[in-house]
């Protein structure tokens, strides 16, 4: 998972109503304050995206034996057609969709479960557990993948030895188990972070609600189900969207695990396929087209999901 988007703080409250009511005149000195941000934003965010999209409409063409310098030709949508008719690329898209279908529910349930446990009235050593669950998030993705990789490779793994001794399944690196192995790394890494987002949401719930519920005879489980979960709906949707985007952009884990298994190919995920085209095969044009497609896919799916949960005026954030 990319993590970049996941680090965005979860402000889900919408723009202050006041600002909307009284539009201000743009004063010149405001420009001075916002200019640095917008300059950097334009230079390092908008411009590269624009350049990538521009690049995706061209291709390098050689001729004959190719011993002369190639020319850059306009390719129209050629690169997009190449990507979308490439079975390996479309296969990788299906693969991350399957991965999302597995990983998103696991992640949301884990994060919610941990958050509810830590928020329950009977929880002890809250600070300790909160930090412990959050700690994996501080481990860089590459290190986390290497670390788990060592635990998956039979020759170096005490875990595999233990499972084998107990007669349990222990082959993490086969084609039919590798996605779960990756899901495990992602969950280990990000569940704690998502838990924190939910805990922040839970702490904003007025305590009187719980007291009132208890007076009415509700136990902890009922309180969790009927009060807490409905009231953290907005942060729940937030972490779902973050996880969705992260899973669709799956990259680091398969890249690191690739040398350890025959189950991961150079186009295992769409991001990996784009990376392989750009840096392995020096075809930046096709890579740009693939990257654009991935962005569109993530955009459509995450906004589609938001539309779905926000319908009937039941707006979460």
């Amino acid at each position, binding site marked *: 998972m990319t993590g970049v988007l996941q680090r965005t703080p979860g402000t889900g409250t919408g723009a202050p109503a006041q600002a909307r009511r009284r539009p201000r005149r743009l004063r010149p000195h405001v420009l001075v304050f916002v200019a640095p941000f917008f300059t950097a934003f334009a230079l390092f965010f908008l411009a590269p995206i624009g350049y990538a999209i521009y690049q995706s409409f061209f291709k*390098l063409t050689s001729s004959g034996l190719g011993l002369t*310098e*190639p020319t850059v030709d306009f390719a129209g949508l050629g690169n997009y057609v190449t990507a979308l008719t490439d079975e390996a690329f479309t296969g990788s898209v299906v693969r991350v969709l399957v991965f999302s279908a597995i990983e998103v529910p696991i992640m949301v349930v884990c994060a919610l479960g941990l958050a509810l446990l830590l928020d329950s009235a009977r929880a002890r050593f809250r600070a300790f557990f909160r930090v412990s669950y959050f700690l994996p998030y501080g481990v860089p993705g590459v290190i986390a993948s290497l670390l788990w990789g*060592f635990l998956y*490779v039979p*020759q*170096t793994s005490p875990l595999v030895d233990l499972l084998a001794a107990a007669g349990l399944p222990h082959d993490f690196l086969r084609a039919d188990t590798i996605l779960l192995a990756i899901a495990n790394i992602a969950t280990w890494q990000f569940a704690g972070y998502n838990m924190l987002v939910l805990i922040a949401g839970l702490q904003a719930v007025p305590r009187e609600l719980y007291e009132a519920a208890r007076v009415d005879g509700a136990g902890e489980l009922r309180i969790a189900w009927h009060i807490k979960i409905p009231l953290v709906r907005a942060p729940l949707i937030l972490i779902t969207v973050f996880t969705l985007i992260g899973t669709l952009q799956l990259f680091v884990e398969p890249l690191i695990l690739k040398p350890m298994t025959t189950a991961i190919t150079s186009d295992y995920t769409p991001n990996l396929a784009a990376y*392989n085209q750009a840096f392995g*095969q*020096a075809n930046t044009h096709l890579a740009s087209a693939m990257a654009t497609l991935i962005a569109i896919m993530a955009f459509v799916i995450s906004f589609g999901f938001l539309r779905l949960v926000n319908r009937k005026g039941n707006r979460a954030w």
Partner: protein
Amino acid sequence: MRSKLARAAAALAAVTLAAACGAGEPAADGGGDPAQPVELTFWSWVPDIQKAVDAFNAAHPGIKVNLETVTPGPDGGYAKMLAAVKAGNAPDVAQVGYDSLPSFLVNGALEDVTEHAEGHAGKFVDWQWQTGVFAGKVYAIPQASGPMGFYYRKDLFDKWGVEPPKTWDDFAAAAKTIQEKDEDAYISTFAANQAPWMIALAQQAGQQWFGIEGDSWKVTIDNPDTRRMADLWQKLLDDKLVKTVADMSNGWYKDLQTGSIAGWIGGSWGDAIIRGNAPGTSGKWAVAPIPQWPGAGEFTSASWGGGSASAILKGTGNPAAATEFAVWLNSDPASVDILLSAGYGWPSIKDTGQIPSLQQDDTVFPFYGGQNIWDVFKEADAAVSLDWRWPPVSDALYATLTDNAKAAVEGNGTLADAIAKTQQAMVEEMKAKGLNVTGG
């Protein structure tokens, strides 16, 4: 894009102009003005190569070479070099694998240095020299290759009563015997992750993969000799007589340490890898020549990933000095000795008799029970096919072959299918690039 092309064209024109102006001057002979030395930039990732560069600078007061270390080519070094050529600030000389020279040429990144280099051809082994020559023009000076041999645990082979295999049939039989004697031990792994390794096995099997006919590339990956090689390994995989762990991975290193993997068809530089990662097995290894195919006639070996060259990049202002440096770096005995001790591979020079560490090496030979393993690799390097041509799409070849071979190991089709799929993909890839191609 237009402006980039214009800049590249301008750079090209400037280079041609400089070369034209330089033609009248005396050829560089280590001369130049010591007070104002010609400055060259050299990009490489070879460990310890700084020592060789220092030695060159000390011996050539008129030329000053500045080494800049880059990441190894396939890990980003090549991308950086190609980008630098496009941007017009490329180094004069760069480390480029034999397998990638054609891609560089196709990208217009190499400088024609025929007039400065052709006189030195006699110093180098023929097949290695030819890797830097295209259509009669010289673009790169060969540095080192990876001739293949069979590393094996002599102590274990002796214990099991297995002889090092002379033919591939022997190899399959030995694989079976070893499994019978010890169910935890394997003769080798099938490294589906390692395209250059599989390509070397195919290169050794007989018919080559790429050729040139007129102005068209001929792709013959899916040929009877390669299929024979693929079938042999497929049978070993089916019978579970070889492991499938990736080579040069942590699991593989562990297997070398424990003797779970007792052999490796590896390049000459593989010695450093085994010694470095399984130091506890010192004295127990030996090296035999690579097994042979029946009907091969004379002894045939192959080179892992070809090898590596010092290429003169497009845009250098000093092709003469750059060539002189590249030739010295790769042929001066002192320099070759330094490169060899860095574990970088088999030297490209013909006369290896003048390299002291190839005659006696008190670090290497004891690891192999006193065997002079370099004799095996010297013979192997002389037995590499002259006909092998790398295509201008070797990166795509590596990725495609690895992906297809991995699928075969995972049980989706056979290795022969993987070869057929790779053939088809390469023809398509080259056609898509606008190259003239005929499929075999």
